[in-house]
């Protein structure tokens, strides 16, 4: 949190030294925050989906006759896990463009 605050204040200080308008400063802070937001939002779901698919593949290899049920549940799990990353992406779009 303090790292984010430091980045934001540093960016704003740089912007004030360069005589940028308020809109420019807002754009710069938005872009910096957007990149940070999406990067952070991608960490958890990345680990989660990796673990989930790894376990699903292991289950399918151990019990090939259950592959159909495992695959369906795997897609369900991916859909729920991925939602967090996608909300991060939406936040990115909102911070960057809105």
């Amino acid at each position, binding site marked *: 949190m303090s790292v984010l605050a430091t980045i934001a204040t540093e960016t704003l200080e740089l912007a004030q030294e360069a005589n940028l308008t308020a809109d420019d400063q807002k754009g710069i802070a938005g872009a910096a925050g957007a990149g940070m937001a999406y990067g952070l939002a991608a960490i958890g779901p990345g680990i989660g989906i990796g673990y989930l698919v790894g376990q699903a593949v292991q289950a399918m290899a151990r019990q090939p006759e259950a592959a*159909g049920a495992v695959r*369906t549940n795997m897609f369900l799990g991916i859909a729920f896990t991925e939602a967090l990353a996608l909300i991060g992406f939406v936040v990115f779009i909102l911070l960057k463009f809105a």
Partner: protein
Amino acid sequence: MIAVDFPSIQNLVEWKNIFGDGTFFAFNKIGLISVLALLIPVALFLFAKKDAVPRGLQNVTEGAVEFVENQVIMPTIGPDGMRFLPLLLSIFLFIFFGNIFEVIPTFNMPANARMANPLLLAILVWAVFIFVGVKNHGAKYFIEIIWPPSVPVGLRPLVGLIETLSVFILRPFGLAVRLFANMLAGHILLVTFGWLCVVLFVPNALAAILPFSFAMLVLLTGFEIFVSFLQAFVFALLTAVYIDSSLHPAH
């Protein structure tokens, strides 16, 4: 330092009206793609013959029906979910054809990369699973969620609050945002690499990057075809799971 002017997001997702500018009937590319996504499956099923031995087009339609039957309904709702086949098949095909226009030249835009279509479909699914729950369990359906009887009394307000939020608010929100954000992200990726292919077509050393961005564009086009299908599948699958949870509420 090189700087590439990336087109603004408005240029990527907003389209001029084809006709009816400024009126209620304004019609743009998104509308056109949505209408096509509605008409193509209807035409497929109208023109496919209904022989005992499938040939040609009939293989496509029977494949679609069997896919929804075996991969979406049977693993989630089970045999008594077959009465939801028309709903789930329509949702699946509409989303799939809306998405696949992302990689069709001259269109290059998924209809579901705008919030309108995913939101409408999510509200439809929301209404359907609440209707199914009320029809099968009456007022008990809401009581089981808001004041779950299987939980110790002290925890009921907390669990009930979480359940109410997750069932009635987060479910439709998640459905809509999942489809929308996936398609928008795919569209922006394709635009990024397509745009790089154009601006790197210069007579200096930077052109060395062009083959890589072109290779990425080709790979991502294939990947986006897969994502179009996968998102339609996931949307139909989650719809089936939600309907199942209304038919047989938590124990």
